[in-house]
């Protein structure tokens, strides 16, 4: 077809030439001819269909202009539009040819064949274009901060030591001295220090994420002792890990298909342990970026380092994406976005398609970093790709045991193959006709399958299932298929088997496609050979089917080299062992003559016995290997490599290759060497990040911790220190604190202590209207902001009140074993909320109403919404009602207490304080009303408790 048309186009030009050659030179004629063709055909076409978007005075879409020869020669972001040497390779041609779904022009309506013909002739004859003069260059306006000027932005400048401002009071902490200076400048007056009760409550919520227990309320400790006690409790790690989990979008499942990530919990434990052990933050960062690449002699260290890298593998990935190149780059993009936001407070993702519009991050920096991430394998591809699991490092003995098991497994498999072949070589003693009713599982025989094309019924050769079997008459190749679809298959994993009658005339590679919940699988069956199981069935594999999901098998005669036989398909539930009795139940004993046997009966029995025992060994080996502890992680690629710039972010339009590296707006630190060609690069990235001299990393972390404790950061855009983020309200303070933090070995606990022991932290939230007017957003930290319990604290407090909370030790996975998908998961209540499980399709109760973090995003600051759904949940949620009811029951049973004592108990447990006189009166009135209408005591107390839970003081703490 294509050949024909090029001939036609040559012919057309020849006609033009013949007409012209009479009076003029050939060359002149050619020019005239082309000029004529251009003016009459090409130019109008360009105007009508292309220039609307591709002209200097319109939008120059994709950087391409077609209003001059210079325009298309230079081309757009993807390169020259026309390849004169090989015109069919021209991007212009590809676009109008409409064959490549990623490049089709014009985008709204494709060209008619006649219009395409114009381009075909024009391009194939050298693309004559008289519009030589280059169009006026559009002036590109850019508001971006250039790399050269990057030092003009505070965040890219080195952290500099600051003198602590002098103050009147000697004992003033540095933090307060810095804040006092800025408060004085704005004439803002700091509020007084809050009461001891308020402060211990505040500390408990900020450092443990729990309301104070009655025991804690009654212990007499001074402030700093209380701080130390809280910081050294295991609850501290749980609270701070939950903050970090928001930032790294921690989750234990993936939205699409609800896949459960069974090993993600190890990373949660790693976080809790790291905060509790006060792991230096440099180490904490290095491990999360490159823990798998850090050498260590200690097994425990190697374990926790590897587990730390789970951080990079928790993206809510679209494993179903069919364009795997696209999938890989989207995966990398997600990682870069995360690293940018969490560690650098930079919006790196913006530079994927174009240079960052505001910050000094050029596209080549993006691909320099993308090259690093791309040098590790994050998924095994298939129709639905799979994340990477790596064995948890173990002691030498255990590891070699596992290795031995793997080796043994391979050996057993090999031996089984040999045995199978031997057993198969013995012809079946009794070829039979098997009845569908006698078979296990779900069987679809050919009579109930759907046939495409002509298939011949046959009963010539046994064994087969049902009335007959089908064959394609070795004819109409590629046009015939049989589709087997069971009408109602229960969800689960099935072994799928095919029955056929073998023989020398059969095809050697019959294409059988199995469509299951996990997509399509192709198996090629050699029908010359006897079916492996019992001489009737050939196992195709094990597949998972779900309710309403696709479940069918297609046998096709495409590309087959002999007769294709289609008999029956059997779906055997996994774990059920197919019985050999199937052939015994046969109704029709064969009269076919038996071939001579090479192996006598006794030997055959022995072989079968050995085979059976090996099968069972294989199964137990598999079970043992399945129990091997695994880690959700990445695998360094064998050959790391630099990657190309993806023009406008497209994986199908590659530009220049860029060497792997980091952000060029941050001057390289002396201790980070360039990335060696053979090195993976993540370790270098980790060292570059976790570096005293990186001006972003430590500042970002310090600001983050500040925001956790103070309600807002010194830079309020905690994950954006770029030019579109906010300026620090007190850069001197941020820098001073950052340098001291570095001097203290990047210690989180030091930092927390420093902050909570400042007066700024301890201030009352009560302030005058005037103060509010001066600083409505409290950027000067002259007062404290009221705390609102986050959803975890609400849940944990209620579980504690109802006596259900188990604080546990070393809590590991909370996911039921063998759970494969998270849909409709019913959360049980036992541990603190941090232990989840955190499922993207089944978040714990109350989580979405009370502004829990979206586990698909890196969240640095949770929303703080006040909506009717919260009130509805507090009033009507079953979960809250159950907690209230249990707590009410506990209270009502305290028979030795008076009503007033019980009321006090309710308030102490839920609000960590005693009721005021008015509140006590209110509570008594409620009880009185309940009694008046004879509500049982337990219910009366439950109702009272429920009201207190719904009160504002439960959720808002001063």
């Amino acid at each position, binding site marked *: 077809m294509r050949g024909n048309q090029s001939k036609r186009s040559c012919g057309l030009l020849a006609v033009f030439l013949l007409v012209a050659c009479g009076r003029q030179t050939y060359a002149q004629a050619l020019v005239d001819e082309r000029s004529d063709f251009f003016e009459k055909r090409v130019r109008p076409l360009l105007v009508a269909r292309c220039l609307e978007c591709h002209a200097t005075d319109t939008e120059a879409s994709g950087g391409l202009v077609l209003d001059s020869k210079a325009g298309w020669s230079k081309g757009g972001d993807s390169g020259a539009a026309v390849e004169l040497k090989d015109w069919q390779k021209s991007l212009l041609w590809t676009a109008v040819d*409409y064959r*490549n*779904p990623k490049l089709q022009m014009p985008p709204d309506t*494709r060209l008619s064949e006649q219009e395409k013909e114009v381009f075909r002739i024009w391009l194939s004859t050298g693309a004559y274009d008289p519009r030589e003069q280059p169009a006026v260059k559009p002036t590109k306006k850019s508001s971006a901060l250039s790399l050269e000027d990057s030092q003009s932005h505070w965040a890219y400048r080195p952290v500099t030591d600051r003198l602590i401002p002098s103050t009147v009071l000697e004992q003033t902490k540095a933090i307060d001295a810095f804040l006092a200076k800025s408060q004085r400048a704005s004439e803002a007056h700091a509020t007084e220090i809050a009461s001891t009760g308020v402060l211990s409550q505040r500390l408990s919520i900020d450092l443990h994420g729990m309301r104070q227990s009655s025991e804690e309320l009654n212990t007499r400790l001074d402030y700093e002792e209380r701080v130390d006690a809280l910081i050294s409790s295991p609850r501290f790690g749980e609270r701070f890990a939950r903050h970090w989990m928001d930032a790294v979008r921690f989750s234990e499942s993936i*939205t*699409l298909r609800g896949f459960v990530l069974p090993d993600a919990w190890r990373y949660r434990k790693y976080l809790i342990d790291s905060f509790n052990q006060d792991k230096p933050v440099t180490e904490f960062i290095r491990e999360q970026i490159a823990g798998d690449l850090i050498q260590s002699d200690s097994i425990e260290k190697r374990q926790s380092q590897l587990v730390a890298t789970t951080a990079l593998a928790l993206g*809510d990935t*679209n494993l*179903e*994406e*069919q364009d795997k190149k696209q*999938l890989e780059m*989207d995966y990398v993009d997600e990682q870069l976005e995360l690293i940018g936001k969490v560690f650098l407070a930079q919006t790196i993702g913006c530079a994927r398609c174009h240079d960052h519009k*505001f*910050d000094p991050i050029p596209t080549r920096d993006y691909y320099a970093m993308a090259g690093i991430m791309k040098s590790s394998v994050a998924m095994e591809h298939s129709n639905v790709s799979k994340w990477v699991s790596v064995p948890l490092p173990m002691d030498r003995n255990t590891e070699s045991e596992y290795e031995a098991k793997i080796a043994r497994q391979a050996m057993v498999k090999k031996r089984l193959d040999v045995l199978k072949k031997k057993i198969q070589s013995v012809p079946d003693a009794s070829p039979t006709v098997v009845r569908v009713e006698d078979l296990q599982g779900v069987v679809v025989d050919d009579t109930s399958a*759907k046939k*495409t094309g002509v298939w011949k019924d046959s009963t010539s050769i046994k064994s087969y299932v049902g009335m007959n079997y089908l064959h394609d008459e070795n004819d109409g190749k590629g*046009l*015939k*298929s049989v*589709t087997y679809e069971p009408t109602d298959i229960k969800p689960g994993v099935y072994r799928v088997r095919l029955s056929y009658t073998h023989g020398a005339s059969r095809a050697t590679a019959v294409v059988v496609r199995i469509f299951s*919940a996990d997509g399509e699988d192709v198996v090629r069956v050699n029908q010359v050979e006897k079916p492996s199981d019992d001489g009737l069935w050939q196992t195709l594999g094990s597949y998972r089917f779900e*309710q*309403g999901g696709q479940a*069918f098998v*297609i046998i*096709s005669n495409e590309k087959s080299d002999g007769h294709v036989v289609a008999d029956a398909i059997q779906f055997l539930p996994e774990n059920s062992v197919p019985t050999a009795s199937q052939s015994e139940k046969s109704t029709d004993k064969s009269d076919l003559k038996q071939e001579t046997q090479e192996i006598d009966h006794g030997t055959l029995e022995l072989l079968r016995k050995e085979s059976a025992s090996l099968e069972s060994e294989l199964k137990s080996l598999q079970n043992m290997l399945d129990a091997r502890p695994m880690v959700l992680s990445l695998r360094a690629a064998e050959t790391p490599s630099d990657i190309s710039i993806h023009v406008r972010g497209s994986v199908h339009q590659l530009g220049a290759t860029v060497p792997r590296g980091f952000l060029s707006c941050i001057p390289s630190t002396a201790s980070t060497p360039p990335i060696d060609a053979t090195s993976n690069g993540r370790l270098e990235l980790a060292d570059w990040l976790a570096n005293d001299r990186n001006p972003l990393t430590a500042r970002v972390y310090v600001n983050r911790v500040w925001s956790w404790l103070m*309600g*807002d950061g010194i830079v*309020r855009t905690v994950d954006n220190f*770029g030019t*579109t983020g906010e300026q620090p309200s007190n850069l001197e303070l941020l820098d001073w604190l950052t340098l001291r933090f570095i001097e203290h070995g990047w210690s989180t606990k030091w930092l927390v202590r420093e902050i909570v022991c400042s007066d700024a932290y301890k201030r009352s939230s*009560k*302030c005058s209207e005037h103060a509010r007017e001066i600083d*409505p*957003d409290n950027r000067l930290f002259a007062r404290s*902001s*009221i705390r*609102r319990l986050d959803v975890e604290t609400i849940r944990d407090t209620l579980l504690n009140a109802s006596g259900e909370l188990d604080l546990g030790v070393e809590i590991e996975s909370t996911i039921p074993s063998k759970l494969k998908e998270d*849909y*409709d998961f019913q959360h049980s209540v036992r541990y603190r909320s941090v232990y989840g499980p955190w499922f993207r399709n089944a978040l714990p109760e109350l989580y*979405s*109403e009370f502004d829990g973090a*979206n586990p*698909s995003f890196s969240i640095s600051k949770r*929303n*703080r*919404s*006040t909506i009717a759904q919260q*009130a*509805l*949940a507090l*009033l*009507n949620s079953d979960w809250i009602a159950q907690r209230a009811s249990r707590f009410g029951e506990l209270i009502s049973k305290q028979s030795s207490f008076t009503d007033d004592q019980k009321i006090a108990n309710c308030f102490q447990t839920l609000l960590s304080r005693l009721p005021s006189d*008015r509140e006590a009166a209110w509570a008594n009135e409620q009880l009185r009303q309940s009694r008046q209408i004879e509500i049982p005591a337990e219910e009366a107390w439950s109702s009272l408790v429920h*009201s207190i839970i*719904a*009160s*504002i003081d439960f959720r808002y703490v*001063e």
Partner: protein
Amino acid sequence: MIHRRSFLQSTACGFGSVAAASLLSQLTTGSRVMGSDSFGSSGLHHIAKAKRVIFLFMQGGVSQVDSFDYKPLLASRDGEMVGFDDAREFANKGTVGSPHRVMKSPWEFKQFGESGRWVSELFPKMGEHVDKMAMIHSMHTDGVAHGPATLFLHSGSQNFIRPSMGSWIQYGIGTENENLPGFVSISPSIGNGGPRNYGSAFLPAKFQGTPIGKAGRGPLSIDHLKPISGISNRSRLDQIQALNQIQLEQRLNGETELDAAIESYEMAWKMQSTAPELLDFSKESEETSRLYGLDQKETESYGRKCLLARRLCESGVRFVQVNYGDNSANPAWDQHANLPKHAEHARAVDQPIAGLLTDLAQRGLLEDTLVWWGGEFGRAPYAEKNGTGRDHNPGGFTMWLAGGGVRPGIAYGRTDDFGHLAIENKVHMHDMHATILHLLGIDHEKLTFKHAGRDFRLTDVHGHVVRGVLSEA
């Protein structure tokens, strides 16, 4: 509108007294701040032709060549092997033009209405409404698999977490009734993106869709909406509010956020008093019941959902999605094998949708309600793997619009002669989004939200309003 945007964003940030104050004003004045009153028919950016949207989502992908896109060539060349550019093959291997067996439709087509639109016998009842519809035959979209394409349909992105269209609309023009959620998804599937398909992503949580019921089972109910237990509903709430009042006064210098929290109980009360009534169909006439097919076993389920959609629209809900699907990875209309199963699904939705259109028209609601029908993609005109079904086809399929601002009785765009790929007046899903926003008075390029350092849009950097389907054009 810059002023409005910055206002919305200040509430979005949520911290500090300014935000709390605006939250409060929003709660107390409801629609005056967020809803239609302040914009009225003048729309957010221009005059709105539609005030609300009903989206009839056909999950799994309806085959266009077996329903609305009549292609006689399929019958005349049935069984022939022809080279097609299969989207899945291209995504997996980058190959195009491999041979596939042309498969004719098992259903007959006939012409309907004054416009003479061809509709197959799958949808005889909907066929009677073709003169109300703008049939768009040239749809194309991103995503070859269900998950990605479904997310794309709802949020304009396959692989990134983005707000759903209903959330964008809520954010843009608010709700007409502060006592009800403004964005509702009836019986959403938990699969193929599940909550992300009605989630607000980085937009404030209050813009997220409220699910009513679940795909596949259960009653049509809203979480946490039920009578307040206790002595009597209102007195129970009064007790709580009495305690709240005491606590507010004890705090002396209470923050406005606390007032907002107290106010939220009153809101909840109003919602509670309105919503259960909406879910109660007992006052609907028998005629209405029949109209929606509630009297037939096959149509009862989807009929109830369509009827609920009408009731929600009447009450001022902005965006109602009525899902026909299930929770599997290969939902409802996904006939890879056994194409005839399409008939079962068609039977279930045909009468209810026709009934909805009739009912909306009778009540005068169709004038300013936009009805949108379709799936995440279409299906191929050839047999999948030479079998008895059709694979996904994001390259060309049909959706229709009817009602507010839509040019009735037209067909727009065209696929090739096999009905495979859109070739004329192509309408990308981004264009569809842009057009729907346009009808609601929203300029899709101006409705932005700042997140992670840049302004995001429903249509990313794409999308053109399809003027050809607008009544004004």
